[in-house]
């Protein structure tokens, strides 16, 4: 019979201590990435790279993309975040600093789907609810106005936000991967990291949409400007190192496209869901909005 001591579970203190000191350290071996720059940029590929994944999963105690995409554990690896990590990433998306690349510093090879999904869901409801409240507040003086919940706006907001947050990263990732070549110092980000950046960059729109209830036109445009600057700079700081090695025109055009799409989302949301106090507000989609009601309200305001 073996002695009880041999059968006891043995803690490997040293490895656990090393990782506790620097939980974000990449545990991938150097020999795996031939193009690794001194800053430690490693390409995180989603294919099952057995050596890497086994090593990291043993040390970190988590499951990094084990199994195929039909197993539950595969998806569980995308939710491997703690409360403090999520809060830290949100803080970083609100306060972008020029030197700190969001993906390098905050995601660090651990992209999660929790943040993007729940930030999008919160944004959908905050935009729809705030839009409804702003309509109500702007029509409050009108005696002929009956309050409507306008629930269909939730559906429209959901389609718009979720399409943006998933299709645009797909396009950006596809473009980056297509343009990537071997001489590049910094390789393209993985699809999940792109989705992560876009998802967290949308966070600033949540308080912005709540503040849009205040019915002053100049305040609403100022808020849009501030939000676009902040969240646009998160995206620009993240993607600039990847495209800057490309030809000048491609780099600038791709950056401009990213910023423009982001701006379109913000302005589209504002124009469709929120009404300013001025009678000039004309809603672009008049098929499902309460057009006759606004007309009477606007004409009564014009007196």
């Amino acid at each position, binding site marked *: 019979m073996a002695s009880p001591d041999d059968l006891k579970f043995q803690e490997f203190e040293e490895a656990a201590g090393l990782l506790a000191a620097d939980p974000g350290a990449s545990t991938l071996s150097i020999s795996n990435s031939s193009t690794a720059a001194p800053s430690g940029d490693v390409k995180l590929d989603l294919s099952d790279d057995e050596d890497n994944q086994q090593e990291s999963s043993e040390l970190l105690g988590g499951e990094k993309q084990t199994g195929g995409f039909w197993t539950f554990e595969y998806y569980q690896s995308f939710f491997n975040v*703690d409360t403090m990590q*999520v809060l830290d990433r949100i803080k970083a998306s609100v306060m972008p600093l020029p030197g700190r690349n969001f993906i390098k510093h905050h995601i660090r090879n651990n992209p999660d789907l*929790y943040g993007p999904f729940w930030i999008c*869901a919160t944004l959908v*409801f905050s935009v729809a609810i705030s839009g409804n409240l702003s309509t109500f507040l702007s029509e409050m003086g009108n005696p002929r106005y009956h309050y409507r919940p306008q629930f269909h706006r939730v559906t429209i907001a959901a389609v718009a936000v979720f399409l943006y947050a998933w299709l645009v990263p797909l396009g950006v990732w596809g473009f980056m991967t297509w343009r990537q070549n071997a001489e590049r110092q910094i390789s393209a980000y993985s699809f999940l990291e792109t989705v992560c950046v876009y998802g967290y960059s949308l966070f600033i729109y949540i308080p912005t949409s709540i503040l849009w209830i205040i019915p002053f036109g100049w305040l609403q445009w100022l808020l849009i400007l501030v939000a676009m600057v902040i969240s646009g700079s998160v995206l620009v700081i993240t993607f600039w190192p990847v495209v800057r090695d490309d030809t000048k025109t491609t780099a600038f055009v791709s950056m401009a496209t990213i910023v423009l799409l982001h701006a379109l989302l913000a302005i589209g949301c504002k124009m469709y869901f929120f009404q300013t106090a001025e009678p000039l507000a004309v809603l672009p989609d008049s098929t499902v909005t309460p057009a006759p009601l606004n007309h009477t309200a606007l004409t009564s305001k014009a007196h």
Partner: protein
Amino acid sequence: MAEVEDVNKPLFAGLSDVSIAEDIPVEGEIAVPLSSRSADDEISTLDEPVKDTILRDLKAVGQKFVHVLYPKKSSALLRDWDLWGPLLLCVTLALMLQGGSADSKDDGGPQFAEVFVIVWFGSIIITLNSKLLGGTISFFQSLCVLGYCILPLTVAMLVCRLVLLGSNGIVSFVIRLVVVTASFGWSTFASTAFLADSQPPNRKALVVYPVFLFYFVIGWMILTFSPSH
């Protein structure tokens, strides 16, 4: 049982010498010891009158309602989960949210199907979220808890409709706001009391926030219900 064990030991020692004949008494319980389930698991439920079957399920649902209204740390909701209660509450809530005022059919409150989709898909997504974050609760148990904890909000909907029968002014709005806020807080508190223990400790807030959002949206639908004139 003990006699069998006693017989086994000499068997191993001198196997060839002992013959298993009828003079060795072998007795004991072969059946696996029953877990502490109630007695009606063994009685066949085919022969009882239908009224008994229905009443038994109704009593179980009612007992869970009581557990939701006074959320102590009991495991009744988790152990004997059922989805009758959530279905009943969801249908009641969706029916009461109908009949709101609308000029065009697009402009009013949520349709019946929209309420259903929000409640059930919302619960499924929250359950998936908590399981993906490493929770130990099972899928249907979590659906059961989230569904039953809609009860305070359904009660608030009833109160709101009664208040709206009276008047539709500022006073009624304030009353409805207070009632809906209180019941939203109650629902969130009740469901976290049941769900919180099954999560890893450093991810509790990540699991509680979607529940908060879910009941907030339902509370919003209740608060913004405006009746037709």
